[in-house]
């Protein structure tokens, strides 16, 4: 059997879990294994019935009063209990920040490790060959897992489509789980400053990365954005350096956007950035490094100095717009 993790906050689904269901269903078909969803909660979770509407063998609500708020200790204990009770072959999760926090702990406790952040898989001879990005997205690695089950696999956001998860009808079962001491206390999650710029509504985005080199040069990118009627955005290092405010950040820790056109200036294309913009209609990349991963997802690429290209772009756009 395959266990798939359903992530939620106060019984509200994290939609990447539907991608995990789709992944688990696909693997299940290839390996001839049924899929059971696992949902840690402190009550008879209202989300369980929604999840039961997918093609699963079962939905297990792993229940304990200490599971109302996420903690790594609480989730690790709950998962250990469910795994020991159900003896699964695979445990499939989406590679979210929460999963990164607890999954390696559960695996280590059972003498395993996680094959994390996979982008695809192949089933060969009854086992999985998983593909992960390494070296900041510059290379792919095909990976096998040794030893005995259970095997822990997490998939990158977007590796599977949540809307392709098959519908069906599953029974809901509550499993009381043992949770020991929780060595951390959680406060309520919050949003830092409410994003003043909603980049998800932008038609065109001009985004800058480390290649912009200094804060003074941001003005050049702003000029290009202005002539295009675009919004200015940035990769994480730019916002970390406070050259642009954090509400301009695109990527896993910032906003996820899908504009008609995305122009990446001096952005190498680390995975954390790419997950935030790969669904743009047209992607333009300007970068000195011809090997930069951003070119793998670009529709148009210019290999060269952005300080040569951008002034010309500004003039040509002005001309084109008459």
């Amino acid at each position: 059997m395959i266990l798939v993790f359903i992530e939620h906050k106060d019984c509200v689904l994290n939609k990447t879990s539907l991608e995990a269901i789709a992944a688990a269903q696909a693997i299940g078909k290839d390996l001839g294994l049924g899929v059971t969803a696992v949902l840690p909660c402190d009550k008879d979770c209202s989300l369980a019935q929604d999840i039961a509407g997918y093609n699963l063998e079962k939905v297990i609500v792993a229940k304990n009063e200490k599971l109302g708020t996420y903690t790594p200790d609480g989730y690790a204990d709950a998962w250990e209990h469910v795994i020991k009770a159900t003896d699964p072959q695979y445990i499939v999760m989406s590679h979210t920040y929460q999963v990164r926090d607890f999954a390696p702990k559960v695996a280590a406790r059972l003498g395993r490790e996680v094959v994390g952040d996979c982008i695809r898989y192949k089933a060969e001879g009854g086992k999985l060959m998983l593909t992960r990005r390494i070296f900041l997205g510059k290379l792919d690695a095909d990976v096998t897992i040794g030893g005995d089950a259970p095997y822990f696999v997490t998939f990158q956001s977007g590796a599977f489509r949540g809307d392709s998860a098959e519908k069906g009808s599953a029974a809901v079962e509550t499993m009381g789980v043992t949770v020991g001491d929780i060595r951390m206390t959680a406060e309520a999650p919050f949003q830092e400053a409410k994003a003043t710029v909603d980049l998800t509504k932008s038609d065109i985005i001009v985004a800058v990365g480390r290649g912009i080199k200094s804060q003074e040069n941001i003005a050049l990118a702003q000029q290009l954005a202005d002539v295009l009627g675009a919004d200015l955005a940035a990769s994480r290092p730019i916002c970390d350096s406070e050259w642009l405010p954090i509400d301009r950040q695109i990527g896993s820790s910032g906003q996820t956007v899908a504009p008609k056109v995305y122009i990446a200036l001096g952005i190498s294309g680390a995975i954390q950035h790419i997950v935030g913009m790969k669904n743009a209609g047209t992607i333009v990349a300007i970068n000195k490094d011809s090997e930069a991963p951003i070119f793998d997802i670009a529709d148009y690429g210019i290999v060269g100095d952005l300080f040569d290209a951008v002034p010309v772009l500004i003039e040509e756009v002005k001309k084109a717009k008459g």
Partner: protein
Amino acid sequence: MKIIVLMKQVANKDAVLRIAGDEKWINETDVAQQTNESDGYALEEALRTVEAKGGGEVVVCTLGPQSAKTVIKDALARGANRAIHVVVDDAKSLSAYQIAKAIADAIREENADLVFTGLQSDDASYGQTGVILAELLGIPHATIVIEVDRESLGDTLRVKRELESGWYQWFTYTLPSLLTIQSGISQIRYASLKGIMAAKSKEVREVTPTIESFASAAQIQKVYMPLKTKQTQMLGNGDAKAGAVELVEKLKTEVRAI
């Protein structure tokens, strides 16, 4: 207050990578190396925490070949008090669990109050060595920490974790505990000349670990350039200005965005 900081030597961010002959890793010969980015922030946060506490010790620990001594020297020059070097010539052959196990064995008896690591390495990107280490040491952990409330430091410590999509959450941890630190948590200091001189006399303890085989290790079968998902039109043929002219034409006629 004793804080151990795990730091790893990785290929330079901008290095051009060539795939090794056996297609299992990169060819590391002549590849410029650097300290893993988030590990640099972990060190900075540890130094600031000890400074705020008015005393204590920052111990840097690295696992890798002799060349990783450059990471140690740099950390000592920035202010770490001493170092533990877990010497492994072929570190790339170790899985996340094996690395965590070797480090756990090397630092367990240090009984540190806190262990800081970067959130993931920029080469293998397992993102789990710290979490496994915490489990092996029997201490709680927090990943992706973006702020440490140094005022709160006592028997417990309050830290801010980054969640997704601009959300954050504060947690309070009992000590000892392990934190994996997010890049950008603070501005990293430069090594002073005085620091560089002082580093020469600081203790570097070498440890030769016993590496046990680990049946459940993930094994890399093949490394290759990512398969392109898109047909990219390269413009300008190396001339960025010519490329810019072509690009505007494309944005006008093919994309119809202008």
